[in-house]
């Protein structure tokens, strides 16, 4: 039997539930690569959130 054999597919519980996405290493690499720019932009925005400004640092608490 090969991976394409319908009997093989039927035997896999994940396929029965329609859950498996049949990820290939190439797809994983592609999807990750495509996310890099967005992640980098988000990280740049987050830098300002995770650093206090001078005004934040000098808030006086009584």
């Amino acid at each position, binding site marked *: 039997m090969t991976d394409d054999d319908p009997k093989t597919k039927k035997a896999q*519980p*994940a396929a029965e*539930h329609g*859950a*498996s*996405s049949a*990820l*290939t*290493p190439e*797809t*994983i*690499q592609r*999807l*990750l690569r*495509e*996310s*890099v720019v*967005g*992640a*980098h932009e*988000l*990280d740049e*925005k*987050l*830098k*300002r*959130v*995770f*650093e*206090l*400004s001078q005004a*934040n*640092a*000098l*808030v*006086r*608490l*009584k």
Partner: protein
Amino acid sequence: MVENRIVAEAFNVEAFEKLLSKAAGNDKTPVVNQVRYLARYCDRLGARTIVCEEHYIDRHFLDEHALFYSRSLQPPPNHVRRFHVFSREFSDAQLSELLEESASAAGQTSRQICDDLSRAYLGFISIRPLRSVPVGRTILRRLEDGEPRDIWATGTHDVHLANLTLTIDGLAFQQQDRAVGACATAAVWSALSRVSRHEGMRAPTPAEVSQAAGRHVLPNGRIVPAVAGLNVQQLCEAVRSSGFAPEVVRADERPEFFVVALHTYLLSGIPVVLVLLGHDGDHAVTAVGFQSAAAPHPLLQTSVPVRSARMSKIYIHDDRLGPYARSFLHPLPRTDDFDECLLLAIETPRDAHGDELVGNGTPRAEDREEWVLDSAIAPVYPKLRLPARSLITLAELLGDLIEHIVGPENATKLGVEFYFERSGSYLSKLSGRIGLGCAGFLRRVALPRWCGIVKWFLDERPLAEFVYDTTDILRDEHLLGAELLRAVVCLDSRYRGDFQQIASIFPVPST
């Protein structure tokens, strides 16, 4: 001669208020807010019996005494009175029987007596001999707030009462005394008391926190007396001096990510000091837990489907009120006149009957006091170097991949949250979640003391966890987080093949 006196009596809320006030030497002036709050809080917890310990040396008050009060012309005593609160009814005579039974029993039976009593133990309140600021170190059980979605950054404490060892889960609270500590001192002290004990260290005292805060920078003048208050920079210094790293986050720049960070630290069991801006001055409180709503708030959503967007209530230790006070997060959108911001509405004891102080219902709008959230400080273990910010970035990197795995029809049902956990605890909590055949994974996986976890959910059920090394930083997103990823844990067997495939790319152990 120094002698203790331990007495049990029935709980009654009005009588308890008077008892606490009297213990501080205050039987003439009105009962202070914190005492009224504590009495009502104990009532809501289901208090039935009070055991008063007349002479207790509290290390935290002793340090305040040594730093300030001992050098007064007329110093107060150096001990506190402790009031232990129980949800079980027993008389003073029955307390004697319990002490004798425990003293005469063998080890295991004695332990059993303590365990039984601990189930009814609601915690203790220390009353300092300071009339206007009586509430010293207090640890009380959390109040169930009617919803099962509560998360708490609290710890377990052993409490000794005569020959009994009782246990209580909670976070230490105390009222600022304005001599040794300000509100910020109390807030940082509460947070440090949890993380220090969790790391096996001795929790710093308020006096130590104050002195550390003012060791290098004095922008507002002298630290003791503490009337001038502290600034955020000084709080960071106090955290650093206590052996922790101050992780800071600001709320005035992308509030939705501030909420992600707050959610992350509380989920990690790390209390967070919140800096609040008010009309009549600024204030600090300690966030100790939260409750989530059923649906996310649109203004708290981000490009990744963060579960923090559902955070609605925050439980705070507010030294003006008491422990576990309820507050509500209100994100406000940007307008022509104002930037977007986060409001924190704190329930205040304005109700004439005090019913809303620790109530279960929705309080009236006029019983809330609104503050603008400015920033937050989380004291983290110094070698936990990967910030919450990087976990968000790593989730963004994985987002498309996870959506591909679950399919477009399920993409809207995805959720993600972030937390840090000690690796030993993390691995032991995998029991019952990853099933048979995990021995190979457990033998291979290598984690630092603290790991960072990006946890994905599908339709409210755990889907998978990506476990990261926290001893380094995310240097270059182009490496896809590969340098930090240490394990992939699949929690939904339908997708095991997909997550194993991802793990093999990096390559890291997977379940």
